């Protein structure tokens, strides 16, 4: 394997210098945060997506997931570039526009032993890929799906996306005349087993949500409002930093408790719910809004709608099903990877072929 030598390099992507400073904190498997990073971002300075990338790095590091046991997939668009910026030791697949759910569904069908993360944007998820997103939710494919939601097409310079709110102004001052598609309401309607919303600027909220989503066995839908500093961060936009900060209302705060760790944090018992996840970890749902029940799909839907009428964007872990059955459980596949099956277990052999052909006579 000596042939893998790098003879010439023209840099159109930017690797990060692989310098590890002594004294960097290490996780349970001895890795530093740097081990969970990827190449340097090529997004605009201040892009919300980069904050989400940082939260993803933090969450994976805290969970001590071996990076090479993760598969990261994305579609097309600014958001879909981000898998290059985290977990450089993980296989990545940047597919075609709006079709990441199909790729990840197939990969997951083949090898259920890996941790899957799919990153998408509002154009990728809610316009061109709306069908695929919907059906991946229905199948309850076991993955963390992060929708980096800025309400705008960035790479093609500022067109409204399907998540842009009606009345929201473009950079040129035009108002969006159509109703928006709300990813969380959509996911709830389609039977998603894990629905959360967060804000790229709120790492304290986002990191535990990502961790809970990774622990969830099934489709974990996380809509992250992520302002576009270049095309959608002006006055009149409902996806700007200023607007989101002002209208963001956290209703359920998620805390993540890893497997086997004691639940020690003290909360008012009436407002906390511990939900045990598939892997033995717990998600602590701390209700911030009094009347909110994150295990009631209909109430969750109604609550989001109600708050929306008042111009509020509710965030937090909005819905969690405690009896989620992922795609493999539904179809009763073996618990291990299909890729690892030895050929002898797959091919019935010539004797059986001769025997079975009696039915074709």
């Amino acid at each position, binding site marked *: 394997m000596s042939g893998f030598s790098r003879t010439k390099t023209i840099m159109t992507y930017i690797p990060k210098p692989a310098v590890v400073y002594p004294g960097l904190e290490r996780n349970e498997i001895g890795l530093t945060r740097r081990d969970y990073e990827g190449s340097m971002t090529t997004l605009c300075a201040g892009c919300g997506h980069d904050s989400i990338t940082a939260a993803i790095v933090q969450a994976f590091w805290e969970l001590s997931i071996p990076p090479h046991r993760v598969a990261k997939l994305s579609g097309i668009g600014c958001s879909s570039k981000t898998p290059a910026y985290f977990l450089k030791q993980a296989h990545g697949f*940047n597919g075609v526009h709006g079709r990441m759910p*199909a790729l990840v569904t197939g990969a997951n069908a083949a090898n259920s032993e890996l941790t899957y993360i799919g990153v998408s944007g509002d154009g990728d998820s809610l316009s061109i890929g709306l069908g695929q997103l919907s059906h991946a939710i229905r199948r309850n494919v076991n993955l963390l799906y992060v929708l980096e939601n800025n309400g705008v097409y960035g790479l093609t310079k500022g067109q409204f996306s399907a998540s842009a709110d009606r009345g929201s102004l473009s950079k040129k001052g035009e108002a969006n005349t159509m109703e928006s598609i709300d990813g969380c309401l959509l996911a709830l309607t389609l039977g998603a087993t894990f629905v959360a919303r967060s804000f790229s600027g709120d790492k304290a909220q986002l990191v535990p949500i990502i961790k809970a989503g990774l622990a969830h066995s099934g489709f974990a839908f996380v809509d992250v409002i992520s302002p576009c500093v270049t095309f959608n961060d002006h006055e009149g936009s409902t996806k700007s930093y200023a607007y989101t900060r002002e209208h963001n209302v956290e209703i359920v705060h998620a805390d993540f408790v890893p497997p086997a760790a004691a639940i020690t944090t003290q909360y008012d018992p009436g407002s906390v719910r511990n939900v045990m996840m598939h892997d033995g970890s717990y998600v602590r749902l701390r209700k911030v809004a009094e009347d909110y029940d994150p295990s009631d799909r209909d109430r969750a839907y109604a609550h989001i709608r109600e708050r929306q009428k008042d111009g509020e964007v509710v965030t937090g872990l909005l819905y969690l099903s405690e009896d989620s059955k992922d795609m493999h459980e539904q179809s009763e596949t073996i618990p291990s990877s299909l890729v690892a099956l030895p050929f002898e277990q797959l091919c019935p052999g010539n004797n059986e072929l001769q025997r079975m052909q009696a039915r074709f006579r």
Partner: protein
Amino acid sequence: MDRVNDFAFKIATANGTGSASANGLLMQAIFRMGVPVTGKNVFPSNIQGLPTWYEIRVNKDGYTARTPHFDLMVALNAATYDKDVAEVGSGGWLLYDSSWPLDERLKRPDVTYLGVPLAEMCNATFKGVRERILMKNIAYVGALAALMKIDEDVIRALLKEKFGKKQALMESNQKAVDLGYQYAAKTFSCPLPIHLEPLDKTKDAILIDGNTSAALGCLYAGATVAAWYPITPSTSLMDAFRGFCMKYRQDPETKKNRYAILQAEDELAAVGMVIGAGWAGARAFTSTSGPGISLMSEFIGLAYYAEVPAVIFDVQRTGPSTGMPTRTQQGDLMTAAYASHGDTRHICLYPADPREAFELAAKAFDFAERFQTPVFVLSDLDIGMNDWMVPKLTWDDSYKPDRGKVLTAEQLEQVKTFYRYLDVDGDGIAYRTLPGTHPKGAFFARGSGHNKFGGYTEDAEEYTEVVDRIDRKIQRATKVLPAPIVRQVPGAKLGILTIGGCHAACNEALDLLAKEGIALDYMRVRSFPFGDDVAKFVESHDLTFVVEQNRDAQLRSLLQLETGLPIDKMESVRYYGGFPMSAHYVISGIKARLDKAA
């Protein structure tokens, strides 16, 4: 002329009346008598009510192509009487349900009419509307058995096998057969000149459709993930695969499935799932037809450029658009060869019959993994859905799947740095790694511009280097792809070059033309891109007839594009009306040109 074991007949019924099982019974009975037989189901895109036909050709010499000439018509659908009466060959027979009088206008002086009161007899014998309708069909099997001398014992045995413990059903079926048989035996002079005598020409053969055999090929090749969207005429491929998996792919202890079959939301998703699974390391496939290929094209370009194995079965039907979903064609030859925008060229395999569909299905996975690219298997509705008589399938137990260049964790441990798209061995095929194998194996697969190290690029030189290597890789594949089937006659200056399901018709045409003193060499291509032998074949003949089933001579266009051969060396012979190719069309096409030249 001796017409024993050499004739064709056609059965006209309405869809959803149960005629399919009656026709299957006829086919099987003839087959069990040792007489070569083929059946073509001419069915509508409908569940109940529209006209449907079944054509059975009996041929002692084993010619299995469709013939458009029918010696006998079983006309049971009043809605198509006119057409059906017109289709009987002169001097032939027409069997009809004489429970109702036949309009005088339908009487032809050159046809013998055989009236059997099927409805009357069945109404008198059976109770219930459903049973009466079903048994009418079984009754014509009985009448035909008497008229064509089909062995009654064979029919009895088949009914026993089919209904097994369902004694009542078996008895009513047998009663219906007897009704028809006895009526025909006492009313007509049996057997007709077109009848059967037992032979021993089917003992090493099976009757199988190409979708079932292709599904078997997938099973035997070790495919574990399949994704699809239902579409005629490919649906039965996935149905068969599911059936085989349920039988052969269950963990014996836990009863859990060692396979995943995903019914996708559309064909875009179906092929995306296959590509995702291929990237993850599974042998994965989809089955579809032309409309599906159109939808899949963007993703196919991704698999080509990101170099992900995928197997795509295109069971072709008539296009464009929805076309005629239940009629056959070879209309996707061009689309499959270059599917996707941008520069692409795909490996295509072209089975000629269900046996080859089995073999090439299995091989497709080897090629897909070895060359890290999508591979098409292009059959068609005729191969996929009709029962063909083919030699029994065999499997070489020494077969080991060719997974291509996949680095293991141990190998990766030895590598300093792994680069996904580096041509380490100089053969155009780079090493790949599977997700989850080793930290050093990670790479970023992408459909955007990438350099040989796997990095994103917008650099002209870096981009070109990779796409040129992929082109070399696909071109080199021709050295191992299935070679054409060739049949040569000494001194022949003319040739036939054909593809896929035209094989049977062309071979029959070759024999018939030879009897008239017209000698032709023969080549059937089995894969794309073409090897050098294909161009040589055309070059070495004064004129080559390119026989295919589409309007635009797509095979000839591919030959022109890929070999640069002049068009005047290749005369196109086409039939594309939706029925399987017949020797008749091949011969008339060739003769038209020869007569013009003479």
